[in-house]
Structures are given as structure tokens and as C-alpha cells.
């Protein structure tokens, strides 16, 4: 028979341990909302902005200046002029920029003569995200400029040409005019219509903070008792392993609930993230927490010293941080790696949370993830109590 009095005795004692440890209390109260605030701002905008870049207008014509004016209007760049050998080697790093362009002499002339010269561009490839974006932006600006030039050309066409055009067969004429208007895709964005990255990344931030804090907090509880010697004292009482495990998980569950509330409050009040289906989200959080706590407890029961417990936690948390899809979609990962990711509670938490909160999915859509979290919670807790049982045998 499980005794609730015994469980409450352990839970109360465990809670007092944390409560009386002022430094840990401070960390618990201050860090999670602060981290949410910090990470939220760090990841609020995934768009690349203000890339330092320099230009050299060797052409210096009306055309080149018009193109540069368009470029300067783009947020992605932070332009500054530069002078040098337009043909020679261009060093970016010493100049403190990540991109450089040279508009070659005779560029404007070339456009008029039907012999367009390429603009020379130099990119810093160290950051694999920035370089392609910069290239894309350059290409796009050039396209815009070309379109503008074409529109000007058409509107300034002599009447004779228009008359000539009218003699063309209607199909050709329509095809021609279709070619002259820019084609467009009409996009309707669902689930996150304003493309707010924060809405996507918030579950990742909340989950990661929770994962880190719950696992490390609880990971040292059993090993601490082992080190201090109180574990033997516990083991000579009629306490059952299940009671010890439940008693230890309960207070940390309460603490983690508080953590969730504080991080969600920051997400909602400060970042304006909206939360849908609170019940389903709560169930997701609860199962995720139980799994994380069980995992921490398992680490704790498995380790011999507190140092070991913390080390094992870090070894576990490192891949979780990088591979659980907290900050970038899992689909970007290669297939075999994704299989590994499926073993992390955070992966399932993020997916379920996003499915509910962004896709407004119902229970059915996240049942698999919830089932995984539930099974994980049971397996880790049972594992921890088994390890406790076989402590000295």
C-alpha cells in the first residue's frame, strides 16, 4: 500500500531543500522569465539586417546612381562607399564588411548599348546564412531595377512602335503584354499570418529552459542523499521506492509549473504571443515535465556523485538543445539525425505545442507525441525506482 502521508513527508522535505537554498530559489524565480525575455528578443526576428557592405561606383552614371539608390533603400544592407582598384583583389574582413560590390566603368553605357556588363560582387562565406541572403537581395534589387527600366522604356515608347504593335496578331500581342507585366504569386499565409518567428520559437525557448532546469535540479537529489548518507537512512525506513520517486517528483512538478507560468506570462505579455486551447497545452506541458523529471531522477539514481549527475545531465542536454527542433525546424536535419531527435522529450513537446498553438490542432493530431511523453515519463520513473531498489545489492 502506498502511503500518501509518507509521500507528502518526502515532498515537503524536498521542497524545503529547494526553498532554503536561497541561491537556487533566486535562479528559479529570476532566470526563466529573464531567459525567455532575452532569447525571445534574440530570436524575435530571424531576418538578416544591416549587413555591413561597401560599394564602389566606378561607373558613376545616372543608371549606376539609380541602382545604388535602390540598394540603399534595402534594410538588409548597411552601405558605405569605398574606393580602390575595381579589378583587383577585394578584402572584406580588414575593411569590416561582409559584402562588397563594384559597378564597373561603362555599366550604364552597356545597358543602353544592349551589352549589359555584370556587376562585380564579393561575399563573405563564413556565415552560411548571410551570404546567400545577401546574394539574393542583390539579385532581387537588380531585378527590380531592370523591371523599373523596362516600365520606363515601355511608357516612353514612340507612338509608331505602338501603332506597329497594334498590327500584331491578338495572341502575340496578349502574350507580349503578359510578358511585360510582372508575374506574381498571391500568397495567403496560414497559422502564423504575420510570420512572427517568436510565435514559432517560443515553445522551443520555454521547453529548453524547462528541460535544463528540471533535469539539472532533480538530477542531484538522489545522489545528494547518497553522498550525505541520508539515502541509507531512507532505505531502512519502510518507504517504498515508488513513494520516494513520487515524493521527489511532486515538489519539482509544482516548481516547474511555476516556471511554465512565468515564462508563458513573459511570452504573452511582452511578446504578445497568443495561446490557444489552454487545456491541451497544459496536458502537453504536464507530460513533458513528468518525462523530464523522470529523466533527471533516472540520471540521479544512476550516478554515484552529484558531480557525475550534473555531468551526465549536460551530456544529455547538449544534443537535446541542438537536435530537438527547438529553434529550427526538424525538417532541416538529415533523416538519420531526425530519428535520434525523436527520442528527446523536447522534440515531442515542441511539435505538440506548435501543432496546438499554431495549427490549432486537436487532440488527435498530437496524440502520438503525448503518448510518447507519457510512456517516457512512466519508463523513466519506473527505471529510477528500480535503480533505487537495487542500490546496494
Amino acid at each position, binding site marked *: 500500500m502506498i*502511503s500518501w502521508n509518507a509521500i507528502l513527508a*518526502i515532498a515537503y*522535505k524536498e521542497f524545503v*531543500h529547494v526553498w*532554503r537554498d536561497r541561491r537556487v530559489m533566486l535562479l528559479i524565480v529570476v532566470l526563466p522569465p529573464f531567459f525567455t525575455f532575452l532569447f525571445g528578443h534574440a530570436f524575435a526576428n530571424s531576418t538578416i539586417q544591416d549587413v555591413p557592405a561597401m560599394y564602389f561606383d566606378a561607373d558613376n552614371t545616372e543608371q549606376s546612381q539609380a541602382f545604388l539608390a535602390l540598394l540603399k533603400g534595402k534594410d538588409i544592407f548597411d552601405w558605405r562607399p569605398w574606393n580602390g582598384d575595381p579589378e583587383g583583389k577585394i578584402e572584406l574582413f580588414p575593411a569590416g564588411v561582409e559584402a562588397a560590390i563594384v559597378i564597373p566603368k561603362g555599366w550604364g553605357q552597356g545597358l543602353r548599348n544592349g551589352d549589359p556588363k555584370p556587376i562585380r560582387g564579393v561575399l563573405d562565406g563564413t556565415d552560411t546564412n548571410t551570404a546567400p541572403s545577401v546574394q539574393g537581395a542583390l539579385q532581387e534589387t537588380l531585378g527590380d531595377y531592370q523591371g523599373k527600366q523596362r516600365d520606363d522604356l515601355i511608357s516612353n515608347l514612340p507612338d509608331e512602335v505602338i501603332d506597329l504593335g497594334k498590327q500584331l496578331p491578338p495572341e502575340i500581342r496578349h502574350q507580349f503584354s503578359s510578358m511585360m507585366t510582372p508575374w506574381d504569386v498571391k500568397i495567403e499565409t496560414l497559422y502564423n499570418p504575420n510570420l512572427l518567428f517568436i510565435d514559432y520559437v517560443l515553445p522551443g525557448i520555454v521547453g529548453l529552459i524547462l528541460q535544463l532546469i528540471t533535469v539539472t535540479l532533480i538530477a542531484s537529489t538522489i545522489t545528494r542523499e547518497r553522498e550525505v*548518507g*541520508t539515502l*541509507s537512512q531512507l*532505505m531502512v525506513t519502510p518507504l*517504498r521506492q515508488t513513494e520516494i520517486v513520487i515524493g521527489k517528483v511532486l515538489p519539482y512538478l509544482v516548481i516547474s509549473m511555476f516556471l511554465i507560468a512565468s515564462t508563458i506570462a513573459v511570452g504573452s505579455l511582452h511578446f504578445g504571443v497568443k495561446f490557444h486551447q489552454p487545456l491541451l497545452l497544459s496536458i502537453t506541458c504536464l507530460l513533458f515535465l513528468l518525462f523530464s523529471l523522470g529523466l533527471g531522477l533516472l540520471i540521479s539514481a544512476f550516478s554515484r556523485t552529484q558531480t557525475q549527475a550534473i555531468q551526465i545531465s549536460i551530456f544529455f542536454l547538449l544534443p537535446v538543445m541542438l537536435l530537438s527542433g527547438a529553434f529550427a525546424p526538424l525538417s532541416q536535419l538529415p533523416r538519420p539525425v531526425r530519428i535520434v531527435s525523436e527520442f528527446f522529450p523536447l522534440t515531442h513537446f515542441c511539435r505538440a505545442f506548435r501543432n496546438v498553438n499554431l495549427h490549432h490542432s486537436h487532440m488527435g493530431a498530437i496524440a502520438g507525441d503525448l503518448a510518447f511523453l507519457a510512456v517516457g515519463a512512466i519508463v523513466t520513473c519506473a527505471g529510477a525506482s528500480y535503480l533505487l531498489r537495487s542500490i546496494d545489492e
Partner: protein
Amino acid sequence: MPESLIVLKNLSKRFGKKKAVNRISISIQRGEIFGFLGANGAGKTTTIRMLCGLTKPTAGLGTIGDLNIWKDRFRIRSRFGYVPQKFSLYSDLTVGENLRFFAGAYRVPAGKIRDRTRKVLCDMDLEQRESERAGSLSGGYKQLLAIACALIHEPTLLFLDEPTAGLDPTHRQAIWDLIYELSQAGTTIFVTTHYMDEAERCTDVGFIDGGRLIAKGSPRDLKEGLKGHLLEVQVEPAMTAMFELRKLPGVFGADLRSGNLRLQAEDPDALLHSWQIHWPFPNLKFLGFNWVEPDMEDVFQAYSRGYYRPERDQVEAGQLAYKL
């Protein structure tokens, strides 16, 4: 004949190749104060841990009451209290919180927790310190609190692993008074100690050496074996004499006791006789001798120096087995 509460038959524990406890057989009667003596590393703590079901015996059998110490360990646990050698309570909890925690852990009914806590606080003289953190108590009070926690569920058997190690005489006395009171009330006490004066206070003692039980009996019986065999000589200078005498063949030990040299020798009569004919140390002055009453210190020394060669197979429950 009182019934045996604890019965051990060839109980053994090995860690790898090391035999920490080697075929120990003891029986301990209900209400006894059993003193378990031995040097550090002799196997005392391992034996207690096996009795408490904390570590699995590798061979042999042990029972407490009618329950097997390993197979029924979960059922036995509510019947005994265990105070380990090392302070093992929660330092960041107060005295009262520690007691209430263990009351809960030992399944003391919720309605009785208050009364039990009051009772042990009062018995252990801890009432004034109920709201102090356990970690800030002095060594003596820590030990009293540890005993209080082990007694919260009114066990009929109490294991004390070196309860007085490192304590001042006042607290040692307090703890022994407590042991007597408990024993009076019918609690069986299993206590380990290094202090020989404490061994004297037990109703029965067992000596363990290198994992083997080498003697068991009442302090009186054990001392009886040494009677008429302990020679004290007055020699000057005493310190030099001690080292010289220790080198003699047939002498197991020579210790300074109140200025005299207490000798443990194979045949002290013959030795004395030979000295009366010829004193072999020209630089030492022989002043006199007398036969002394042995105490437990002597008994312990005699056993640990191999003065007695116990016939091991005969060291069974309640038997004195050694030859001189």
C-alpha cells in the same frame, strides 16, 4: 531461557575477493545490549548493514524475529531503528522537521506524530532546539537527534553504529543512560564501539577481527579467561622497559597503565620465575610486580594481538571458545 531475537548463521559478505564478513554466527537475545567490538575495517559496519537489509549477504543466513534479513527486509524495516556511523540527517531541515519527516517515512499514524515527536524531543533533551537546523547542532546533539529519528516509530530493536565516536564524556554518558533506559523498557540494542569502557556496559559482546567473530560472551566471562594471567610489573624507566619487554619472545604486549607495565604473555608465570632468577636488563630497574584484574581493554588487546587462538568452528552462539 529468553528467546533469540537475532540469529546469524555463517553470515558472510565479500566485496570482490575481500571477505568483509566471514561466516559470522551469533544469536542475540531479546532485551540484550549487544556490544559489537572490533578495529576499524573489521567488518562491524558491514554486518550492521546486512542486518538492516542495506546490503545483500553473499552467504549464510540471518533472521530477526522470524523474518529473513534480506528476503523480508521491507517487512522488517518498521521494527528496528538504525543510527549510522556518519551523521545522516537533513542538515537544512530543523530538528522538528527531521523528526516529522522520519515519522512520516516510518508510517507513524498522522494522529500520533505530534505525541511521538514531543516524547522523543523530551527524552533526548532536544525540546529547546526543535526549530534549530540540524546542521547547526553540536556533535552530541546531532547524535541525539539521529537516535531520536531512529526511535520515532517505537522500534523494539535499535542498531547503533559507533554512537559515541568523537563525543565528549557528558554526551557519551547521556547516550549510555539512554541505552540503559531503552533496554529497561525492553528494547534490544545492537551497538558497535571502539571504547572498551563502553564494552563493559553491554550485557554481551562479540569481537570481530578481519571479518571473523573471534569471541562472544558477557564481559565478565570474557575477562574471566584472563584472570590470573595479567602481570603488572614496576620497572624504571618505564618507557624504555615497555619497548624492551615487547621484544621478548612469548610476550604479546606490554602497555603502560598508571606508570606500571601490563604484560600479556604466553606464560607469565614462567617469565616471572625466570626474572626472579635472573633480570636480563642491566639498564632497567625491577621494582616489583603484582597480578591484576583484567578489564575489557585487556580482553580486546588479547584478542586483537592473537593472544587467544579461538577454535573458530566452536565460536557459535553464546559460546566462549578459545584456548590459552
